[in-house]
């Protein structure tokens, strides 16, 4: 096998970092090494492959009703995709509820295309129509790349959901007594060598809420926000959160409102 030039350079870089003697400087160079590796990977994010699929799926006639999603209202009017991602979750009059991107896609796939949202919610990540969600969330978030988060809080239900999200964020439970705040409630902390954004505030452009959906190199998988939240709850030792369930939407409102003004880099690249 001949390595790609990029892979070869990465291997050399990592080898150089690991060869240094263990000192405080070693911590810096390991973290710096990882940051450099990520910068090199940033070009050629496999998320682009999912974006292409997603655009296709938005425009393709599918489902029992053989219709496309081009009339789907993501909050800025039917078919308006640009800018929609950075205003979600938000209240929708036609369903009388606050919905995040994936919940709203379920609504559109049901109403426009005739799919069964319960069946899609029950489908495991990485299979069946969940693959459709991977593509759609990648493309729809890409259409807001570089835009700043600006979730509406004008509707009483939007404000109520923010409050519920805050309480969910600080909800301690399970055998480890963890809440979201256990890891994401203070600045400048990390688990092992993984930096943790403080999600009670705006952690900055392209960080935290502003960095999902993302392609995870370690598993070669495209993770939507719902999948990210699912694995958070797993690591918290909580029971299993329903796909696009109320708690996931509430947390999205809390994090999204806190991230107001942060630039979205989704779909991003993660280790």
């Amino acid at each position, binding site marked *: 096998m001949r390595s790609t030039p990029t892979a070869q350079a990465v291997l050399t870089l990592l080898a150089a970092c690991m060869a240094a003697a*263990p000192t405080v400087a*070693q*911590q810096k160079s*390991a973290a710096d090494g990882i940051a450099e590796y990520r910068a090199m990977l940033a070009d050629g994010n496999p998320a682009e492959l999912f974006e292409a699929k997603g655009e296709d799926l938005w425009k393709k006639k599918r489902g029992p009703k053989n219709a496309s999603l081009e009339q789907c209202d993501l909050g800025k009017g039917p078919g308006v995709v640009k800018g929609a991602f950075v205003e979600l979750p938000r209240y929708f009059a036609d369903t009388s509820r606050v919905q995040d991107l994936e919940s709203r896609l379920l609504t559109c796939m049901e109403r426009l295309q005739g799919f069964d949202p319960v069946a899609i919610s029950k489908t495991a990540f990485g299979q069946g129509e969940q693959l459709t969600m991977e593509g759609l969330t990648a493309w729809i978030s890409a259409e807001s790349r570089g835009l700043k988060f600006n979730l509406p809080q004008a509707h*009483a239900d939007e404000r*109520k959901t923010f*409050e*519920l999200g*805050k*309480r*969910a964020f*600080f*909800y*301690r*439970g*399970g*055998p*480890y*007594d*963890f*809440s979201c*705040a*256990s*890891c994401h*409630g*203070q600045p*400048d*902390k*990390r*688990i*092992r*060598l993984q930096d*943790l954004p403080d999600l*009670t505030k705006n952690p900055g452009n392209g960080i935290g809420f502003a960095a999902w959906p993302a392609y995870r190199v370690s598993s070669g998988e495209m993770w939507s926000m719902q999948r990210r939240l699912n694995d958070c*709850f*797993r*690591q918290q*030792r*909580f*029971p*299993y*959160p*329903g796909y696009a*369930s*109320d*708690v*996931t939407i*509430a947390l999205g409102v809390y994090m999204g409102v806190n991230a107001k003004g942060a630039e979205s880099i989704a779909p991003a690249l993660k280790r």
Partner: protein
Amino acid sequence: MTHKKTLFLAAAAAATVLIAGCAAMGPKPDYDTLVAQMMTGSFRDEGIAKVDRLQQDASNAACSQAQGGSPPEAVANAIQQAALKSVRMPADGKFIGDWREGEKLAQNGRGMTWTDKSAAPAANGGNCYNCHQITKAEISYGTIGPSLYQYGKNRGVTDADSPTAKPIIEYTWTKLWNAKAYNACSGMPRFGHAGLLDEKQLKDLMALILDPKSPVNQ
């Protein structure tokens, strides 16, 4: 004529503001009930992770309410005292196990998730490096908890079995068993109290940070 009209308009405007204000107020949502509904409605059982894990004891309920701050002093004290009472010292009076096993346990981040097959202590790791620096050699450590490097050395433990070391030995055991004995809203899991690790595993962790021969104390 104009003056009266202005007055009338001003009064009407004031009345509108008052009515709009009242409408915006409305009854304040009962968040306690709404949160309970949201949590029970949003989760399901999966593997060993059952929805009863959402039930909160006094400590978790109070610390959740505090939203990152501290509960009222009386509440915090009650939590700490109850936690202290819950601690079970080792039956054979021996606290220090094998630091080599302790290091393996500290490195192990598995256990208690819905992808873990068993909830038995034998299946669980200590997860320690996720939050703590421990040995010098391990650079992949977290910073959620304080560094434990040189833990025993810094506390003057030269002989773990000596009477002078007893207070720190018991403090450390208590902290591992139920960290909330000393801090009502501690971020550290209650390894003994919650049945996450058994006595032998805890003794091995004790050895890792308190045994003078452990690399932690070199």
